[in-house]
């Protein structure tokens, strides 16, 4: 991977973070800005020296393998955990969020891997959960059920999903549909920053495409999107900036114009690691044809021209 580090020109942190004007609001501050943020759990360092920015109408992608610190990073931004090093600014003001409620009030909404939906509850109850509409006063203050059902249906239709029945338990929806409900919910409640934690991880090719389209739709509605994924092929088409994490540290932060998908992929996968995988398979007495294939993949990655997902699926067959 050492040979690919120089290929993409890293964003100069100073120029990016200092006084870069927001393209839409023309204010000299970022929507969100993290500088050298770190977090440890006891003696385990989960995150160290992460610097990134989120702007209106831009998609910032956070890429990294399992355990790279992606989840820790979004938990800090979403108010579930607090960072213990560096600074975290929202609209130029330094903050430390103590609860998800506080994050929501600051306009930061997160859509989690497990979606943060209560599967036994109807769709409309999930949509408005925590922000229910009420009508009436005093002891007769009650939920405005009809309005909530109508808005749920309308908002979902605006995102391009036509749901059958908003009364059905959300657990009955497909993964992609649930994802959309969660995104539509965040958009409806006026989120300025939308965090998407591995939204395409458990989805098929077609459904992933649908979710990527919602990401662009959210971006076009003026949201700052943080898109967390381990798949560069999902990140590259929609992303404007790319933050690469590895073992809790930032290994690169690029603007789209400065990097190609192949460079991104090779940085992510690490050609050396693929070569190691081929070696391990050989040791374990794997199918020689498959090993040769992994070798070829590794060589391809070294020259920054292939797709790591093919290599990993080939590796699985030998097991």
């Amino acid at each position: 991977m050492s040979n690919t580090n120089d290929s993409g020109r890293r964003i100069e942190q100073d120029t990016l973070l200092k006084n870069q004007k927001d393209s839409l609001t023309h204010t000299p501050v970022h929507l969100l800005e993290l500088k050298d943020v770190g977090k440890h759990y006891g003696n385990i360092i989960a995150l160290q020296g992460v610097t990134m920015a989120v702007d209106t109408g831009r998609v910032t992608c956070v890429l990294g393998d399992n355990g790279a610190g992606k989840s820790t990073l979004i938990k800090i931004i979403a108010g579930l955990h607090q960072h213990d090093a560096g600074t975290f600014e929202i609209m130029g003001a330094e903050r430390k969020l103590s609860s998800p409620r506080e994050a929501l009030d600051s306009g930061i909404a997160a859509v989690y891997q497990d979606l943060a939906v209560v599967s036994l509850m109807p769709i409309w109850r999930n949509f408005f959960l925590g922000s229910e509409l009420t009508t009436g006063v005093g002891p007769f203050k009650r939920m405005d059920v009809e309005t909530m059902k109508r808005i749920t249906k309308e908002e979902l239709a605006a995102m391009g999903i036509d749901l059958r029945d908003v009364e059905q338990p959300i657990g009955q929806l497909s993964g992609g549909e649930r994802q959309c409900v969660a995104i539509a919910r965040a958009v409806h409640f006026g989120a300025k920053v939308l965090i998407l934690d591995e939204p395409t991880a458990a989805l098929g090719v077609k459904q992933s495409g649908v979710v990527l389209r919602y990401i662009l739709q959210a971006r076009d509605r003026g949201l700052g999107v943080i898109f967390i994924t381990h798949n560069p092929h999902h990140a590259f088409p929609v992303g404007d900036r790319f933050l690469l994490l590895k073992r809790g540290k930032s290994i690169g932060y690029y603007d789209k114009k400065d990097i190609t998908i192949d460079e991104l992929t090779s940085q992510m996968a690490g050609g050396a690691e693929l070569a190691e995988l081929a070696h391990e398979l050989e040791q374990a007495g794997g199918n020689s044809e498959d090993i040769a294939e992994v070798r070829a993949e590794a060589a391809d990655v070294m020259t920054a021209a292939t797709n790591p997902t093919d290599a990993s699926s080939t590796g699985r067959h030998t097991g």
Partner: protein
Amino acid sequence: MSTSTAAAPVVADERVASKGPVAKLLGRPEIGALVGAIALFVFFAVVAPVFLQPSSIATVLYGASTIGIMAVGVSLLMIGGEFDLSTGVAVISSALTASLFSWYFSTNMWVGVVLALAVSLAIGFVNGWILIKTKLPSFIVTLATFLMLTGLNLGLTRLIGGSVSSPSTSTMDGFASAKAVFASSVNLAGVDVNITVFIWIALVAVASWILLRTRVGNWIFAVGGDANAARAVGVPVVRTKIGLFMGVGFCGWILGMHNLFAFATVQSGEGIGNEFLYIIAAVIGGCLLTGGYGSAVGGAIGAFIFGMANKGIVYAEWNPDWFKFFLGLMLLLATIVNLVVKKRAEAK
């Protein structure tokens, strides 16, 4: 898709097969209990005709209400994902507080009643607070509360009153008016119906309203269904759970006051084992033990089944020794029916 949708005035989605009223009813959480209650009612009506007399029904309802009042709070708590083993003795603690305080300080009974309310709510608060702070399962936390309250009931009663039962308070100031509120009976078309039946019905109505039509109700389902998800979207999980425990405390206070003013004295060792009756009523009524699903009406039907079985055995002139066996069988059958019905409703 079909010709009928074209003619329909309301724009209906063709993918929604119109759910008939029967299918809708089958989707309700309390349906298993309702079927069981009807079957049991018919059964006792056949084997013991005296069961159908208005006075018998009033007696059955009274028996059901003493369980049902608690089952309201316990059902809501169970939907919220927790349960409480201290409820049985907490009822007695509440009654003893009112009785002993008023007797020892010779105050008006109402002073004791208000103090008992504070104590009951405090017990609920402490249960919830320890649960939240320690993150221990509610089984352990409330088991500990149950044991401590059992000991406190016995110990303090003997220390203050010098006996295992509280001294009689029937001649004290305010007893008559408090009895009118908590333990009188209302003559309804020639039949004396205990006031607890009306309190019970009112509580069920209020709880159903809260559960289905208020924000808090939404939160109760959410914290029981998935507390982490609820927290992530901004639901005040801590307040909701502690509030539910305090709701159970409130129900315990009402029942405790009824016990005190119905009998004037309170046996300090009573109440042990009753917590299971309340939980059984909630479970028979379709509340999911793991939380997130159920209804207040279900708990009420569960309590009604309990009342019918309890008194029906007497009217049928059977040996009441069999009652517990009967109750266990009912619990098993009702939960199996609930499970089957729920799966079938979800598959549709």
